[in-house]
């Protein structure tokens, strides 16, 4: 469905070249939900935004790689062609619904707009379909809410409206960038349920960008873990959670406070993420890694360490043996 091959997105700044995404490869199969996880600044959102060419150029530039959608490199498409892809074949939902909802246009009209842009139909027909979609995403009395402005909706309802807008043309791929991060946990649970149902119903693929490992565990089939502009581990979800094979993934799991277990102190990953202007040579995690040796000054390739399980670590076997706290 979607295949990203060796994508590089660099930013030119006064202080130098910032390699935000530096050789990322991943693929989303039909009907699959792939989670792209990592901490702030790891490049996961830039990767996601690149799919629809939503990264402003300049300051960014696509320094290399391909993004293949149904076999075609969409990174090479002209803006006019890209516009036919956005919202029609590939859609996106964002963390902050107000960033994609226009505050001065009624919600229903915004949902119907994509239909008028991409499909040949009358305003009346578009309105009908939009109302049906609003009902499907759980907006109460959609006939009247159709004319509501975004500020009249609660946070959860705005998120539902944005999902309706993204899915109205039945895209093949939904890119969801932290779609529930700004929501309260009871509302987050509702939205995640909704996304899961719609994915099945519309037979979509989903690329879910998140920092929350709980959200990944509950919604994804496969996971790619990013650190400092690169993918460091890539595996089916159960495999990754049961036996992480990269010390960074491992460290992330261990530093999560647990709901089921009491610990006096949380094991931490020492230090902080290196600046993208100044990544360490070789393995970018080696400055914080307890397993690091001299060999780590050479960059480890992202290689298969178990069936379907990729890890970019010279000590992937040792990492797999590291003691894991239960969560």
């Amino acid at each position, binding site marked *: 469905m979607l295949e990203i091959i060796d994508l590089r997105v660099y930013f030119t700044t006064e202080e130098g070249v910032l390699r935000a995404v530096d050789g990322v490869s991943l693929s989303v199969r039909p009907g699959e939900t792939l989670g792209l996880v990592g901490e702030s600044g790891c490049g996961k959102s830039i990767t996601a935004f690149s799919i629809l060419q939503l990264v402003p150029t300049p300051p960014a530039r696509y320094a290399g790689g391909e993004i293949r959608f149904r076999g075609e490199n969409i990174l090479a498409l002209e803006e006019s062609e890209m516009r036919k892809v956005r919202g029609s074949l590939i859609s996106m939902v964002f963390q902050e619904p107000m960033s994609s909802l226009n505050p001065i246009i009624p919600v229903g009209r915004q949902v119907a707009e994509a239909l008028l842009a991409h499909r040949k139909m009358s305003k009346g027909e578009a309105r009908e379909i939009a109302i049906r979609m609003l009902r499907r995403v759980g907006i109460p009395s959609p006939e009247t809410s159709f004319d509501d402005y975004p500020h009249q909706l609660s946070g959860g309802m705005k998120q539902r409206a944005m999902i309706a807008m993204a899915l109205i043309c039945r895209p093949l791929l939904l890119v969801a960038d932290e779609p529930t991060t700004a929501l309260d946990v009871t509302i987050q*649970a509702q939205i995640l349920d909704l996304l899961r149902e719609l994915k099945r119903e519309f037979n979509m693929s989903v690329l879910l960008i998140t920092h929350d490992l709980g959200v990944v565990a509950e919604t994804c089939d496969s996971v790619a873990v990013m650190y400092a502009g690169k993918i460091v581990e890539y595996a089916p979800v159960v495999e990754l959670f049961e036996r992480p094979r990269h010390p960074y993934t491992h460290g992330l799991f261990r530093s999560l*406070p647990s709901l089921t277990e009491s610990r006096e102190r949380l094991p931490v990953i020492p230090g*902080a993420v290196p600046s993208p202007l100044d990544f360490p040579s070789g393995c970018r995690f080696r400055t914080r890694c307890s397993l690091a040796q001299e060999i780590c000054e050479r960059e480890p390739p992202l290689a298969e360490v178990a069936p379907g399980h990729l890890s970019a670590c010279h000590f992937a076997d040792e990492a797999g043996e590291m003691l894991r706290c239960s969560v």
Partner: protein
Amino acid sequence: MDDILIVRDLVKYYPIRKGVVPRTVGHVRAVDHISFSIPRGQTLGLVGESGCGKTTAGRTILRLVEPTGGQVVFEGRDVFGLSEAEMRGLRRNMQIIFQDPYSSLNPRMTVGSMIEEPLLVHGPEGGAPESAAESPGPRFNRKRWARERAAELLRLVGLSPDYVNRYPHEFSGGQRQRIGIARALALEPRFIVCDEAVSALDVSIQAQILNLLRDLQRQLDLTYLFIAHDLAVVKHIAERVAVMYLGEIVEEAETEEIFARPLHPYTQALLASIPLPVPRGGRVQRRLEGDAPSPIDPPAGCRFHTRCPLAIDECRREKPPLVELYPGHRVACIRAGEEI
């Protein structure tokens, strides 16, 4: 037990004013008669979703916003009865750490001067025992003392003392939060409100700050009111937990107890909503429907009844009192203990 802080019937309403000649047309009932106490050296976690009043509660206790009613007793003194001058004295002992360290640090002040500021304002006079040891002699240099103390505080929170001359933008989120903590600790407070202190941080940094807060608590015998929406974080750091919904406390108990045996349907729903980092759980959980109603015109009876799967007629009519159902476990629900 020695309770350092006692909160009784705390109320904070915000008036809603409308019209050309503004008149009060209603109230946002942000905090509506909450009571709790915290023993010295312990942490009370105050949890709930956005708009439940937890942040307002924390600020009202410190009198950063003036209360509408109720009483706060800190170390035996009635906080709301103090004059402004007396309040300034008390501020040494009660501090706050905010969620977003960037917006709470002045971008044009160096880290050193920000930490020194409270020291210079309040001075070592009448301070806590530690600083009294170096109390003003004839040749006491106030500025030098503050500077040395700032360096010491930076060390205490795990930063290099050389950072005194740097500005906030030069630091990462985790480091900034450490600076915020150093500043809060400058006057050797005994009580700190941590308002979503780790919510904006990445997991690996969050763990570092949680460990730091716990170490400091042990070392300095601090008492925390830890306000957060993340239940796993609260479980890790707090001895007791109080759950708020629409301005009221609906359940309060020791941490182990409330997580093992949540009695209020809202607490149960909160716990069931947390996505666990365990795949293939296949948990089909009971989800709460709808949004929380507005605190401007909260539902009559039990405020949770509009979303509660257990609600019966009586819940719509009568407000359930917060009663101690088991020793130390208070809950406000007539169907407490039934499972949603």
